């Protein structure tokens, strides 16, 4: 079976700093990583290949440097990597991104065989929108299975798939049909480390590089900023509250003293809480 997985190279958000004066993002020197949620999807794809055979193609849209992330994915054991890169994609919102990726997936299907499953992570850690997966599913007319915690079974003969999906208040068990798009939940898999040999091989492997034209996209007005219905008008830092927190004095006092003062302060500000806390504590 052929599995396509979409990954994204993202800045390691834990290391992003905001310039204290200009309030702009300081991107210099911020390392990039594969979006962590995508790694769960990649692991799931590799596991399915282990069981059912076939190939895993990893796809990303991004600047030329996104090739690094694809090489890492090859190092984990993916069979093929495709980098969709073109200046026309710059500034894509989720609608334009799902358009470009779906076109590339269609082209991958023509070139390397039609995918049975397209995977994405449940969301990215930079955009956090969770919209690109559903966008791809809709455009390629794949059945859409989001927030999948577990793939229970796949039958390649009947083309049926059963999954457990995270829903509000519980877990939904669904049966659907291949081909489908799955967005994968976190914590589903222990992520494999590729072997040293795989990593060395990955460094020499070829990454397929496609421009918009290579991916068969002829309508460039649907890409990048021009193809994005949403527009970012303003980026700003949140305004500070007029007053900083009132400080409880901790100098030369016992912890119990401080704790008593804090509680008195809380209950002076919110007298109604006294009853509620006493009631809830059930003492």
């Amino acid at each position: 079976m052929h599995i396509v997985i979409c990954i994204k190279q993202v800045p390691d958000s834990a290391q992003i700093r905001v310039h204290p004066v200009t309030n702009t993002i300081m991107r210099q020197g911020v390392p990039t990583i594969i979006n962590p949620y995508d790694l769960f999807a990649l692991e799931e794809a590799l596991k399915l290949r282990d069981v059912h055979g076939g190939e895993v193609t990893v796809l990303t849209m991004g600047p030329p440097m996104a090739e690094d992330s694809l090489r890492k994915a090859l190092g984990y054991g993916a069979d093929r990597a495709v980098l969709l890169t073109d200046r026309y994609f710059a500034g894509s919102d989720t609608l334009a991104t799902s358009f470009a990726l779906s076109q590339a997936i269609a082209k991958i299907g023509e070139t390397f065989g039609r995918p049975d499953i397209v995977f994405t992570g449940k969301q990215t850690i930079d955009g956090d929108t969770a919209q690109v997966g559903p966008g791809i599913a809709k455009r390629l007319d794949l059945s859409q299975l989001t927030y999948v915690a577990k793939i229970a079974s796949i039958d390649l003969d009947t083309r049926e798939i059963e999954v457990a999906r995270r829903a509000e208040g519980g877990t939904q068990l669904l049966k659907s049909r291949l081909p489908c798009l799955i967005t994968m939940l976190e914590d589903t898999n222990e992520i494999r480390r590729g072997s040293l040999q795989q990593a060395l091989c990955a460094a020499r492997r070829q990454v397929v590089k496609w421009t918009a034209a290579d991916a068969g996209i002829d309508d460039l007005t649907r890409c990048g900023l021009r193809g994005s219905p949403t527009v970012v008008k303003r980026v700003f830092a949140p305004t500070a509250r007029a007053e900083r927190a009132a400080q409880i004095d901790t100098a030369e006092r016992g912890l119990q003293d401080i704790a008593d003062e804090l509680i008195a302060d809380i209950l002076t500000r919110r007298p109604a809480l006294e009853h509620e806390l006493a009631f809830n504590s059930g003492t």
Partner: protein
Amino acid sequence: MSTASQTTPRIAPGRAGVKKELPDHFKDYRHVWVFLELERGNVHPVSFELLGEGRKLADKLEVQLAGVVLGPPGEMVEDAVAEAFAYGADLVYIVDAPPLADYRNEPFAKALTDLVNTHKPEILLLGATTLGRDLAGSVATTLQTGLTADCTELDVDSDGSLAATRPTFGGSLLCTIYTLNYRPQMATVRPRVMPMPQRVDKPVGRVMRHKLSLVEDDIVTKVLGFLPDNQSAMANLAYADVVVAGGLGLGAAENLQLVKNLARAIGAEHGCSRPLVQKGWMPADRQIGQTGKTIRPKLYIAAGISGAIQHRVGVEGADLIVAINTDPNAPIFEFAHLGIVTDAIRFLPALTEAFTRRLSPHSRDKLAS
């Protein structure tokens, strides 16, 4: 909003970046819609929060507020309609059909897309729940319109455009996003970001009923079952009145017990900031912040949490925020109401003890007398 446009040159606008005269086929898009999410017989509270916010937007635009209810024929849908009116809807669109008994993307996306194409809302709001995000992404793609995820603030601009504000860059800054030349303007909002509006029983409003344009046989995905969460094991953080949370300042996973002890002593829910989930110290459903749960408790105690904006947007709605942190320059002191510069690991046990003393039946009797 001249101030907004003055700050824009950093971002080169594309075709969508400049507001043009709306194309003719979008001109009759009016009214504000809120999708009401039915969750196993009940309306998800986020839908009421959105009706409250939708009411404000509709009043500013001087248009009507409509609810959308999709579900199986019967009481469940009728109850949801009554609730929609009670929380401010002027009218409710209903699609009730057996295939809508359980959520599946296909029939729900079809029903909502058809409704939009028929009745043309200017603004469409959904909760940023697993259901809402699954549905909104497909509907926006089919309609080829803009969708802004996980907004923390919604407003109507002087020219009537929806200004949707959300955290960006992994939560370090906020940005305001517009969908200027496409309709509807779509946004999702996380539970608890908006306050719950006042419920007012009012006479039934207008109801518009529609048919679902597909039947069960057309639907590829089938529901095999549903395993409800074990309620006692599930954190009900979003709707808790009192929350205690720990952050990296606690130093080690075992110190989270101090947070749990305090929470138990005052009948609170406990939670944590994002890094602790990433370290595997606490399960993801206890995470508070933009990518976790948004909370609006009456009292929030943050222990050893520095207060990055990721966390801030998740707790800003709390009535009273108490911060305990060793670093006097921690950003949390910028938005907390009460601060203590001290080591949470030492202070939490003392606070737990002091609360227990204060809340003991003996002191309560004293209070009563």
